[in-house]
């Protein structure tokens, strides 16, 4: 596979602040590559360096083997779809898409053909004469992408372009964007803080935190085998337990919560400071009232605090007996659990294989976390 974008030891500093730290990665040609991270993690800085708006402090950016260092944005074979799209309001749709072609020095008939082909491709034929303010949010989106794709860039950069859309349209555009990428085959580098956007669309996702990548993997691996506490928290929903680790005579590991709960673990650890571990269990890995649990299952009694009904994504909020910890449990909507009411006592259990443990990072992704 050919490498479209190759980044080596890339660093960017603003004064004393290091926004991007020693990044090295390659993006294969034709892939949908996402960079996922909370705001302020340096992902926009990284994207702007690739586009050419920032000069890196150190390191190199190569696009199809060509060094981009010192090259102006207008000379690079990459195009950027801006967060707020930045469509030109004084031009109509046709002129917006033709803008880049005209800058390349292409002539009238050629431009017309390319623009109309592109409009066809993004599913908006005949909207060439429309004004930008006559378009809906989703249409603007597609025009902004069309305006870049018509220049046939090696890499298309997208800076959270779905952020401004309402939830329903965003769901729809995710699928649209993925389909479009497959159709045109251009390499997409997409940055977002929304893990669902990254997971649904991408071939590869890099989880970024404080200027460096925590993990670069396929969405499936990212979800099932997170490599750090940060990734486990940031990608998908997860139950987090602050635990201390113990080892019994037979070499088995246990996680002990501060309330005295003791849970079996499947992997082995090098124990040093055993107090500061985070244990994660996915909501859908937790089974409600397990019928014939395997002997190694962690089964505990818990009180149902609330039923969080959300269609297919419904969950139970439960508290293990004699603790004030909260655990989220997936609640399948197959009528099997319709009998569960708030304040009921139930049993929940999970396979030790489903739990992962990491050194505590002290990282807080959301303000209200403990």
């Amino acid at each position, binding site marked *: 596979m050919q490498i479209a974008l190759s980044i080596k030891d890339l660093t960017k500093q603003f004064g004393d602040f290091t926004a991007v730290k020693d990044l090295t990665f390659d993006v294969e040609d034709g892939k949908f590559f996402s960079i996922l991270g909370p705001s302020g993690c340096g992902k926009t800085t990284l994207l702007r360096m690739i586009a050419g708006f920032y000069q890196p402090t150190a390191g190199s950016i190569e696009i199809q083997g060509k060094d981009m260092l010192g090259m102006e944005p*207008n000379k690079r074979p990459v195009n950027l779809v801006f967060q707020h799209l930045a469509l*030109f309001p004084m031009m109509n749709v046709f002129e917006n898409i033709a803008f880049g072609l005209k800058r390349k020095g292409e002539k009238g008939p050629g431009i017309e053909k390319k623009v109309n082909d592109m409009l066809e491709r993004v599913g908006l034929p005949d909207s060439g004469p429309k004004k930008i303010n006559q378009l809906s949010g989703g249409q603007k989106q597609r025009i902004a992408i069309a305006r870049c794709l018509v*220049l046939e860039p090696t890499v298309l950069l997208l800076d959270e372009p779905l952020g401004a859309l309402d939830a329903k349209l965003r769901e729809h555009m995710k699928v649209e964007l993925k389909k479009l990428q497959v159709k045109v085959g251009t390499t997409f580098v997409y940055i977002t803080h929304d893990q669902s956007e990254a997971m649904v669309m991408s071939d590869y996702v890099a989880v970024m935190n404080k200027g460096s990548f925590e993990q670069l993997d396929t969405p499936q691996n990212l979800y099932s085998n997170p490599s750090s506490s940060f990734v486990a928290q940031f990608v998908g929903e997860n139950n987090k337990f602050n635990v201390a680790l113990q080892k019994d005579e037979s070499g088995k590991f246990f996680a002990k919560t501060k309330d005295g709960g003791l849970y079996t673990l499947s992997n082995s650890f090098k124990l040093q400071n055993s107090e500061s571990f985070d244990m994660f269990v996915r909501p859908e890995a937790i089974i409600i009232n397990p019928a014939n649990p395997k002997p190694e299952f962690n089964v505990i009694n818990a009180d149902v605090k609330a039923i969080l009904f959300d269609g297919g994504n419904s969950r139970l909020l439960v508290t293990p007996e004699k603790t004030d910890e909260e655990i989220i449990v997936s609640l399948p909507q197959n009528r099997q659990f319709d009998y569960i009411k708030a304040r009921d006592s139930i049993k929940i259990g999970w396979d030790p294989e489903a739990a992962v443990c990491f050194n505590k990072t002290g990282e807080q992704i959301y303000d209200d976390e403990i």
Partner: protein
Amino acid sequence: MMTKSRTRKIRWSFIIFFIPVALWLLLLIVLPHIELLRISLTSTSTDGFTLDNYKAFFLEPIYWLTFVRTAMYSIIVTAIVLIISLPVAFYITKISKIKTQGLLMVLILVPFWVSEMIRVYGWMILLRESGVINSIMLKLGIFNQPIEMLYNDITMIMGLVYTSMLFMIVPIIGVLGSLDDSLIEAAHDLGAKKLAIWKEIIIPYCMPGIMSGSIIVFMLVLGSYLTPKLMGGKNALWFTEQIYNQIIVYFNWEQGSAFGFLLLLLSSLIIWVALKLTKQSFSEVVR
């Protein structure tokens, strides 16, 4: 009943605010112009309605040539002001830091705290034969003898540009402030060079501000009196001086009124043509 009294209330408040504006327009602008029009259509020698005063303007080359000269210079001044104001406004809104922005605006405003008269005299102190620049140049040995820099068209244009700059910069800053930086970046990203970005993005975006600024500057320059009189060449008149001469010097109110009315009509015509040429609508510009 309820709604009726409410609408009546709104109407009253509207009338209270509207009356001063209406009176101001009527007493100071509409009535004098009607009177101007009436006087311009009469003659000292003959009774009744006559177009002689208007005919005189077109038949006497000295009159219409003065007007053409005035209009041409006003257009040149407007163009120069525009060329200087665009980068200045761009620097203030997009490049300078927020703290310096205020300072720069004050620097532009400060000269307008003194009257036009004082400003022009300031220029004269600098430029006259025994003025500051001449004495410095003589001391440095660059000039052998003092040079008269006043009373020529170039100095006059410089003075007019200086006195009207603010009225172009302020409206352009107004529209530039709302220009999203990412539009400029997007154009750059799509392959545009600096010149193309100015031509395709910044200037079209600023067009309403540019046009309203240009109208203000053009009208201001066309109707200015002090600067051309004090700084301009002695052998060429500004059209307002022509009106002044007719009314005050020759006491020919009829001719002066006709000139005044022609100034209004012709300048409106020029602005209309300019708006048509740039495809701007008046309502868009005055907004």
